[in-house]
């Protein structure tokens, strides 16, 4: 009686052996081959019982982040709104000065332009320092010195930059 080869036992367990019934008949009569089959089956079971390892990072992050897009935190939304409101206020305050300044800027040479800009800037600061709201007598407007005004403008610009930086970082 010919024993089953190792290859035949492998194919039998893989359900790839063509003459399966013949092999089963032999296995029922041959203790040696049956023992080899059991040993091989144990190996299969051991390989397949290997527990799964846990991941150390979340692989879905690129997909969820790409989709999340503009799900900004509340504080960031408030910063952006405040930034937009401040920009609007500054635009309203600056509009008359800018319209006054625009016709004056006609010098073709850079040095002239620079000097003109400088004088306009100084004049603008002077006007700002003495600026009142005459048309709104009921609203008490505080006197703002030119230094204070510059500090406020610098603060607003800084806020603006920080806000934009945060928005861009969140988009990445």
């Amino acid at each position: 009686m010919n024993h089953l080869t190792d290859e035949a036992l492998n194919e039998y367990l893989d359900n790839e052996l063509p003459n399966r019934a013949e092999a089963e008949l032999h296995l029922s009569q041959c203790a040696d081959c049956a023992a080899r089959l059991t040993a091989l089956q144990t190996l299969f079971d051991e390989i397949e019982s290997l527990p799964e390892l846990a991941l150390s990072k979340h692989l879905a992050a690129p997909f969820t982040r790409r989709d999340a897009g503009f799900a900004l935190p509340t504080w960031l939304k408030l910063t952006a709104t405040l930034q937009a409101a401040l920009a609007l206020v500054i635009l309203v305050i600056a509009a008359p000065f800018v319209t006054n300044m625009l016709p004056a800027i006609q010098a073709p040479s850079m040095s002239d332009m620079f000097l003109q800009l400088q004088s306009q800037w100084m004049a603008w600061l002077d006007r700002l320092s003495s600026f009142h709201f005459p048309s709104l007598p009921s609203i008490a407007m505080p006197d703002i010195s030119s230094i204070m005004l510059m500090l406020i403008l610098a603060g607003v610009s800084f806020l603006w930059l920080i806000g934009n930086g945060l928005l861009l970082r969140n988009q990445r």
Partner: protein
Amino acid sequence: MNAPSDRDLILRARRGETDAYGELVTRYQTNIFNVCYRILHDRPEAEDMAQEAFMRAYDRLNSFDLERDFAPWMRRVAANVCLNHISSQKPTSELEEERDADQSQRPDEQVEVKERGEQIRAALASLPPHYRVVVELRHYQEMSYEEIAAELNIPLSDVKSHLFRARKLLAEKLK
């Protein structure tokens, strides 16, 4: 509320809802990582390749047959990504030499490995990469010899011989 089916998530992902694909990734990431880990036996590499597999599958999502299950298809993509990764690296013989050298340098660690699972992992890790791939496809992805041959583009006889030799080596190491 019932969780959406894989099919629903795939359809949504095809419409551009990337969060739907993110949910699929969350669902199968551990399984896919383990496919990669069993083939590569290196955690950072396996995580990178699992990520790569999900990226590749996302790009091919429109060609996925919705009548089939997503998980087996995804596992197959992962196995292929790992296989390509192995092919692009050093030749098999060098890998084996490195692994043998590494084992000879740390005999104490090997002795200390008591858990059977660890022993099996160590035995699998000691196999040449092309043996590990056929073991993965046969034992963990339950593919037939013919499917493995088609997947790896190798003759059927090679599938059989790789598988038998791999098991023989595993049996010797796990005695």
